[in-house]
């Protein structure tokens, strides 16, 4: 047992204190850490930060672009709808106008036709009147001639003389008229 104790004591004497400071390791750690810090700060962190900010701007820019596109589309849609409403309004206005115009035209035509008709009727009337007058005149002459011829033959009286002839005709006609008037 004695030997065990002494052996353990001897072993403890050899052991280095694990908490002791080893300068070479201390300084090496400082240097290596310093170099790594420099490299990371110089080559790594700026790139990560730049990538982050680029990504942020890209995403934000994309969102903004999409937003403006959306607004543009909305404006265009509103414009188109406005145009469509205008066109509809215009169309109905034109239709209304056309209807009015049509009615007016129909009325005008009717009026014109009526005027024409009455004009034609009037014309016919005057023509008839004129023809009647002509017929009366020619009948009077013819009836006179016939009557005198007939009377001459019957009476045997020469009625060649114009003055007498017309006098006889006049008298005859007057008799006729008075006879008609008496009836």
């Amino acid at each position, binding site marked *: 047992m004695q030997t065990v104790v002494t052996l353990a004591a001897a072993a403890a004497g*050899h052991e280095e204190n*694990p908490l002791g400071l080893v300068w070479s390791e201390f300084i*090496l750690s400082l240097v290596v850490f310093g170099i790594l810090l420099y490299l990371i700060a110089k080559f*790594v962190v700026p790139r990560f930060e*730049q990538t982050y900010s680029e990504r942020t701007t890209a995403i934000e820019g994309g969102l903004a672009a999409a937003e403006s596109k959306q607004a543009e589309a909305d404006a265009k849609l509103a414009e188109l709808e406005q145009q469509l409403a205008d066109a509809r309004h215009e169309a109905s206005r034109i239709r209304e106008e056309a209807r009015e115009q049509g009615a007016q035209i129909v009325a005008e035509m009717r009026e014109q036709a009526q005027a024409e008709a009455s004009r034609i009727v009037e014309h016919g009337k005057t023509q008839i009147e004129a023809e009647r007058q002509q017929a009366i005149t020619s009948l009077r002459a013819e009836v006179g001639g016939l009557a005198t011829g007939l009377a001459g033959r019957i009476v045997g009286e020469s009625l060649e003389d114009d003055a007498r002839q017309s006098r006889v005709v006049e008298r005859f006609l007057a008799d006729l008229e008075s006879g008609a008037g008496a009836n």
Partner: protein
Amino acid sequence: MSSLATVVRAESFEPPGPNNFDLPGFFGSSVTKPMVLIVLAAIVVFAFFYLSIRRRALVPSKLQYAGESAYGMVRNSIARDIIGGHDYRRFIPYLVTLFFFILVNNLFGSIPFLAFPTFSRASMAYALAGVSWVLYNAVGIRRHGFVGYLKLQTVPAGVQAFMLPLLVPLEFFSNILVRPVTLALRLFCNMFAGHLLLMLFATGGLYLIKEVGGIGYIAGPLAWVLAVAIAFLEMLVQFLQAYVFTLLNAMYLQGALADEH
């Protein structure tokens, strides 16, 4: 005599101790394993970030995405959330470097063939704690002036005057003197103890099988199974220690920059 025999046999097992961390230099030089590892860690960290962000694509590749996630974790959840304001941007390089440098160095403890957490060498933890101490004090003195900074760190707000003689030395002790020590020791002790535990289970298991026999054939492999479990636990500790170290740095910087608390 049989009891003495077991004592002798147990005594022939040399448990791993602090000496196992004091490795000889390669080829008789003074360049030791932790020295090589710390340089390797710096190369790994820089190479990872440099390669991941080399292209600076707006739509990231897988590697760039990994780099951005790693960088963004420290940038956003440590630097921005704790320091905040617009001050935090200045400290992003420091905090990112610190976190990943410690993380990779710690993870070396769980990587086969490397199998040595660099910060189980106390001097290396001292170096980082020293950097942290100088930095947060310098930042505070630059912001508030020497007296203003001392007042900020040592005189708690809203305390009655007669309490101050008691509190000022206490605050000075805890905020100025103890912080670098606890920073360094927390990191060092976790790495040291975790690695020691792993070595103990690994060598102890081997000893049980080779030298003890009998029950050792069951206990030895069981020790190795436990060693694997502990190795996984260690990976968690390795990450957590890097995180805590960086988080505390950010909090110290925030405290040094704060107007009045």
